[in-house]
């Protein structure tokens, strides 16, 4: 645009200055001349107003497009979260302890001596012949709290033992 007004400012220069002003790089004297020009030039005044409106809209858009920060949680909110975490951890720990196999609860039973060799072919004894009995030993922390009592299995390779707590072993022995 080459139109010129009585102030000798070309409209194209004025529009460049409008952009400079938006960018904050226009010098004070240039702004003064620009203001004088837009007072007498309706086209440039409209252009300046439209550019200012665009700039305002961008400012508004920038503010609106800031990603909102999550508000800081109040102290009681943090406390509640910590309490919940502790409760969950305690519950999970209790469940694991309860469900974990523990050698405190039952001893390990191991055959100490078997009257029958593993490869030996055997037949169940006939008549009143006694069934050969394997001896077992208990290990683990609770081994001393239990007694392993043999039961008739009906086959020399099958050994059946029932674990009784020591306190009930006498009763069990009497029953057998």
């Amino acid at each position, binding site marked *: 645009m080459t139109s010129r007004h009585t102030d*000798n400012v070309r409209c194209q*220069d004025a529009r460049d200055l409008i952009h400079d002003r938006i960018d904050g790089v226009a010098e004070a004297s240039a702004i003064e001349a620009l203001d*004088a*020009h837009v007072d007498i030039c309706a086209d440039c005044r409209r252009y300046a107003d439209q550019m200012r409106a665009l700039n305002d809209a961008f400012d508004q858009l920038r503010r609106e*497009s800031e*990603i909102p920060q999550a508000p800081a949680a109040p102290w009681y909110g943090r406390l509640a979260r910590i309490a919940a975490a502790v409760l969950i951890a305690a519950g999970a720990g209790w469940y694991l302890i309860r469900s974990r196999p523990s050698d405190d609860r039952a001893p390990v039973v191991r055959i100490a001596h078997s009257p029958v060799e593993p490869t030996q072919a055997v037949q169940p004894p006939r008549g009143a012949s006694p069934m050969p009995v394997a001896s077992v030993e208990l290990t683990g922390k609770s081994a001393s709290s239990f007694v392993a009592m043999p039961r008739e299995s009906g086959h020399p390779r099958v050994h059946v033992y029932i674990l009784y707590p020591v306190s009930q072993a006498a009763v069990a022995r009497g029953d057998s």
Partner: protein
Amino acid sequence: MEDSQTGPTAVPSRRPPAADPPVDDADLAPPGRERLVRLAYRFCWDHHDAEDLIHDALIAAEQKRAQLEDQRKWAPWLYRIVIQRCLLHRRKTAVRRRHLVGIAATRIRSGADRQPATRIETRELGEILKTLLAELTERQRTAIVLRHLENMDYRAIAAVMQIAESTARVHVRAARESLRRMILERYPEWAGAHDK
């Protein structure tokens, strides 16, 4: 064209754009994840898409970081990766976007959200800008988003876009001009909205 620089009220000579000093990429602070998400959002206007874009961009950037010869250029390089992915995302979703833009334009035109006060006019204009930004050239769009929404100075824009500062100014001004023209074409009433 006449020379009009001699009158008593002549516009002080606008300094001709001197040769730009080289932009030191190290001037640009490495952006945090949040800032990058915000940048991506300002390209795609969808928080979920922005999060996804940044997630992928950061992985890609870290994987390729060793290829970067000058680690001081990490910040502008990271910006470029994000912007490239944003522009690519825009191309992929162009069809869907056109549909949404149509809906938004209809809503704005119908005046359904119109409320009294000048501030609403500015907000409406912001919504219009969101849709029109997508129609700028990629360079203009990148430049004006960095300038007006990310509030970067031209030096930083030049570093990110790997162009001269003067070129960055040209892109931003061209983008403003394009936006003004598009608004006037589609919302002719805007032309007289500022007449006093």
